[in-house]
């Protein structure tokens, strides 16, 4: 029993805290707090960057479609104009043929 008491006394004996423990604990706490605060900001920044990239890509896609559409539109009018020219020529030939037959 004496031995047991002895052991208990040794275990519960008051010892001074290691030097710098309080400072380390405080630093640890501060860094944890700052990490908690920075995470939402990083997320927010990521969301902003991502949405900027996505909206930029969408705007580029729209502009590219517009450019292609304009080019195609011009081509359509060129094609119709050539078709029109060919039909006019055909009419002239047919008219000349008609005159020759008369």
């Amino acid at each position, binding site marked *: 029993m004496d031995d047991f008491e002895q052991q208990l006394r040794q275990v519960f004996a008051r010892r001074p805290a290691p030097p710098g423990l309080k400072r380390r604990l405080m630093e640890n706490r501060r860094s944890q707090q700052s990490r908690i605060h920075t995470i939402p900001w990083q997320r927010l920044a990521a969301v902003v960057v991502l949405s900027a990239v996505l909206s930029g890509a969408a705007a580029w896609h729209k502009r590219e*479609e*517009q450019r*292609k*559409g*304009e080019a*195609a*539109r011009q*081509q*359509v*009018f*060129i*094609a*119709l*104009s*050539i*078709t*029109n*020219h*060919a*039909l*006019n*020529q*055909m*009419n002239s*030939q*047919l008219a*000349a*043929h*008609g005159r*020759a*037959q008369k």
Partner: protein
Amino acid sequence: MKYRMFAFVLGAVALAATAFAQTAQLPAPSPIEKALAARASHVTEVTLDKNTLAFASKVMNGKDKDEAATRQLIDGLEGIYVREYEFDKEDQFSADEIEQLRKYFETSEWSTLVRERDRKGRESTDVMVKLVKGETHGFFILEVEPKELTIVLILGPIRMDDLGKLKGISGLDALGGVEFKTKTPDKKGGNQ
């Protein structure tokens, strides 16, 4: 992993098949065209497949009467293929080349609407239409002049009402008159 790969390959094949199906309607340029282009002083080539026509249709202003009419015409089309070769001098192409061109585009599906030849054989016009169940699904013109050669191929349903609406557009007056010609080919194309 194997299934994913299989699905990927299947998807790629399906995409390629769709793309092919969309562009298969328009013919590849005839070998004669390359030779003609090499001799021509000015070449205009327009190839518009269904997708490109859809792009054009998107940007056409529906409020503008002329653009609305053009949009209505091109909306159902499968493709437009136009070639115009201009030459500095006459005799830059032979009758044989013209015949080969004609045969390249002429298939059993096409009916001749106008076949006009001048006596000297230097000028000719071929107009053909592709009729499906009595409706025009294609329009082909081969116009030959001493210094100019024009090929026009328009594929897809062509509503004459829509063509008629183009008559008001500056420079497209003859297109509006196509309706009359298709209804009465005998009067215009006397020597078909």
